[in-house]
């Protein structure tokens, strides 16, 4: 698996899109720091961008890479290599190179600006960690969708729909259910509903760490009581990890049964 990972990774970091992605974050990091003139504020703005953009890029990149490397995958399948290793290697290659672009692209401007001497270093690391989680989760989901759909257009469509659902529609449904059921106690419901969506979970996790939960009012207090504690933090991380592992297991399961 490591060999496949190595080659997928090399192939990707040499492709133009990895550079575009890297340069985009580099530019974003510099611009935000320049405009905000404050590391903590830049982290907040960055969070809003990362929470939505990272899943989208992960989804599109994952689907594109899978379909583009189809013929090459077939070449690999005829070699004495375990099927599972081929797909796992490709998956970690894509997710790894995207995470590297993200970490380097954002890391360089922040370190240059003096991140290491500021208090925001923990917030910033948390931002990168959730960014990495979101990349692995959405690349994994998009690989599962791509391997289940022979038709490229369909696969692409489903993947983008999934992103749209988790990034936008889910919040809408969540809000509507809060309004419809406002007569009932909704604390547990909103906690669970947040935890079930990796994008929402990441957002809350960062917001609470940034100590701006006071802005969220009463609900914020409840969230703070749960996510703000060490236990809540660990539970959230565990859920993110679960979100990462499930698509990987799904991918392994699909890969074993598929005809090429």
């Amino acid at each position, binding site marked *: 698996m490591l060999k496949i990972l190595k080659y997928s990774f090399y*192939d990707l970091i*040499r492709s133009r899109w990895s550079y575009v992605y890297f340069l985009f974050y580099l530019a974003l990091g510099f611009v935000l720091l320049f405009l905000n003139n404050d590391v903590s504020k830049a982290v907040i703005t960055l969070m809003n961008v990362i929470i939505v953009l990272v899943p989208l890029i992960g989804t599109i990149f994952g689907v594109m890479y899978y379909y583009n490397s189809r013929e090459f995958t077939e070449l690999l399948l*005829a*070699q004495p*290599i375990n099927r599972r290793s081929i797909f796992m290697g490709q998956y970690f290659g894509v997710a790894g190179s995207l995470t590297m672009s993200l970490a380097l692209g954002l890391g360089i401007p922040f370190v240059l600006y003096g991140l290491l001497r500021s208090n925001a270093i923990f917030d910033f690391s948390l931002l990168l960690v959730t960014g990495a989680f979101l990349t692995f989760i959405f690349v994994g989901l998009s690989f599962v969708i791509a391997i289940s759909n022979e038709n490229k257009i369909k696969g692409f469509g489903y993947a983008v729909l999934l992103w749209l659902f988790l990034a936008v529609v889910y919040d809408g449904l969540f809000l509507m259910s809060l309004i419809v059921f406002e007569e009932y106690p909704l604390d547990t419901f909103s906690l669970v509903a947040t935890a079930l969506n990796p994008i929402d979970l990441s957002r809350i996790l960062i917001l609470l760490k940034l100590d701006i939960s006071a802005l969220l009012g009463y609900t914020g207090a409840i969230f703070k009581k749960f996510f703000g504690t060490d236990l809540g933090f660990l539970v959230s991380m565990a859920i993110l990890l679960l979100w990462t592992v499930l698509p990987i297991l799904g991918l392994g399961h699909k890969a074993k049964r*598929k*005809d090429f």
Partner: protein
Amino acid sequence: MTIEIEDLHKKFGKNQVLKGVDLTIDEGHIYAILGPNGSGKTTLIKSILGMVIPNKGQIMVLEKPIKKDWKYRKQINYLPQIANFPPNIKVKELIHMIKDLRNSVADETELITLFGLEPFLNKKLSTLSGGTKQKVNIVLTFMFDSPLIILDEPTTGLDPKALIRLKELIQKEKAQGKTILITSHIMQFVEEVADEIVYLLEGEIYFKGSIETLLEQTEQTNFEHAIAAITTIGSHA
């Protein structure tokens, strides 16, 4: 016996592609797998390679069942039908990479000279023409020393000179006692290289035997016409 296939069935959705194929491939011969488009040739080959998972039946390669195994592929060199490689790497790197992935000794220098690929070694694969890609494909297939070679449409895009080289290469491998499976639509090529013909029709083996037997049974003098007339033979092989 190099390959033994028993009662192989494969369905894609509602489309029953292989309907109980029984086939024995003996060591040291060149077999041509022929049949009209959609008769199941590629599916049969991919089943042997483990890329397609059969619904029913058993395949043995070199006396071992291939189900849930992948190490047996070390004994097979496979030339896929369409050669599409990762676009961002160079020819030299691809050769190196396949060698690394297979983890076995390979001798590619002779083959590179044979097909005149030296000027392309440092070029990216996306810049190569179809014929040159096929030559790279051939080098990747023949550089390993394995007892079984499977070629899916090896002549695609090759110029006459390369085609002659390919035929010589196939004969050389045969002389070393290797078993070779070929699919092709170029009957002249098949006639020149193959010892045995396996004719697939609608997912079943319709004819298996030497070219001479085929000519006798179809009462034709020309191989191409014999293949075209093959469906007129009453009895199955």
